[in-house]
């Protein structure tokens, strides 16, 4: 279970993670795109994190926190990831509307919603070398009835990492890098990487929160 303060803290932590990985994400984006992915992530999450302490200061609706953060991210960055993330957060937010704390099932629903939201705007299939190659594996595990609910996030994290690494061996079919064709082989997708980092931050925070509430 995650409480509203921890939920907010998660957004701030995501900002720190992106800040730490800014250069790395730019480096990944240079051979494949325009070399700005780390900058975009850092700008977007900085705005989100600042807004948590400003507009959202007194807010305790986790759904509202998520949807507002999505819009804040979008307004700060535009870019391709802006609309993708915004759609993810808005769709995820719908599933946790007016909740002040989130159960494991709420978190699962949030992420399934998030993935649906991104997917609707993305148009990318599995294997197209985008953030979807991290999100689809997460979706699969979160829906996997054969895995006990309480360990699905842990499994999903592992699957997300596999998905991220698999992008190295894919030819891009979406976004800026899609014009590279075979020249995109061998490089890990920056958007998949930042999505993995986000999910990983999320799982860490959720685990910490769960332990704190035991």
């Amino acid at each position, binding site marked *: 279970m995650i409480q509203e303060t921890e939920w907010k803290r998660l957004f701030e932590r995501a900002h720190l993670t992106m800040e730490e990985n800014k*250069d790395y994400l*730019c*480096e990944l984006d*240079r051979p494949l*795109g*325009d*070399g*700005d992915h*780390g*900058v*975009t992530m850092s*700008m977007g999450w900085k705005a989100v994190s600042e807004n948590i302490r400003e507009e959202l200061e007194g807010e305790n609706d986790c759904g509202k926190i998520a949807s507002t953060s999505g819009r804040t991210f*979008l*307004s*700060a*960055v*535009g*870019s*391709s*990831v*802006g*609309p*993708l993330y915004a759609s993810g957060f808005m769709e995820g937010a719908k599933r946790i509307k007016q909740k002040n704390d989130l159960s494991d099932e709420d978190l699962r629903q949030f992420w399934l919603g998030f993935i649906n939201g991104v997917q609707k*705007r993305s148009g990318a299939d599995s294997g197209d070398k985008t953030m979807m190659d991290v999100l689809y594996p997460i979706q699969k595990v979160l829906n996997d009835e054969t895995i006990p609910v309480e360990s699905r996030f842990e499994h999903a994290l592992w699957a997300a990492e596999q998905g991220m690494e698999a992008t190295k061996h894919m030819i891009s079919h*979406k*976004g*800026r890098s*899609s*014009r*590279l064709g075979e*020249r995109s082989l061998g490089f890990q997708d920056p958007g998949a990487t930042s999505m993995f980092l986000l999910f990983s931050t999320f799982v860490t925070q959720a685990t910490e929160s769960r332990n704190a509430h035991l």
Partner: protein
Amino acid sequence: MKKLINDPDSVVEEMISGYLKAHSSIVNGLDANPRSIIKTNAGSKDKVSVIIGGGSGHEPAFMGYVGAGMADGAAVGNIFSSPPPDPVVEAAKASHTGSGVLLIYGNYQGDVMNFGMAVDILEMDEDIEAREVVVKDDIASASKEEAEKRRGIAGEFFVTKTAGAAAEQGYSFDDVQRLTEKANRNVASMGVGLSPCSLPQTGKPSFVLADDEMEIGLGHHGEPGVERDKLTTSQHVTERILNDIIIDMGLKQKEEVSVLINGLGSTTRMELYIMYDKVESLLKEKGITIYKSYVGDYSTSMEMGGCSISLLRMDDELKPLIDAPAKCPMYTQS
């Protein structure tokens, strides 16, 4: 690469601030959004409103082309990043007169998504009719069969000029859209890159080329082109690029074109005119007439080295639009 800036994170804000102050008789900012720019007298005349935009770093494109005879407003993104929907929406709201809003932008994933969202917001929340013209002039970015995937580069200048003049001349929304699409379908561009630019935040070159290399078909953000070659003569490069454009457009003897030789940032006017010299003689050889010529920095990639050639096929409807006057902070035609 060295840049004379203050803080990498505030370059766009400071640029806009300086720009608005330097040209306050032509352009204004909007309280509603710091990334919206509009014509000082926007909305004062009943006409189609033309809104342009895209990432910054391409100056004069896009914000430099707001003014009489060009765009009514622009949305300014972060460097090489599409603006979000809000500044597009606000520029449209502040300039429209109920005769429709035409959004013009280059065919990049980010722009398509953000401007697309802006169209939705305008129609749903604001009850403003908005349509889009997505510029796809870079023939190096995809084959003719996949023309829908092509990127937009310097040719957008011609498309914006056409839209701005058509709107100014009082054409209906349908006609402005039709004429703008006509320009869009009849412009083809291709570039060559010699040296990279760098983002203020990273300071890293956007791509790496050896001292004796060039990249044919390089994109406007350093996206790889169609081939990497040894740097040869200007004539050779010009011939290569121009032939591809002519074939792609299916240009025939006796047809008329306007020409734009666009510098990407650090390529000199001298080099651009040397290129023009060859373009002119090659077109003459093929019996193709030049209607009007533009040589200079019309759409840059910060300090990138390189240039592009764009041809616009002219007809009797487009000629008066290309000839029409314009008065913008970074472009004046009289």
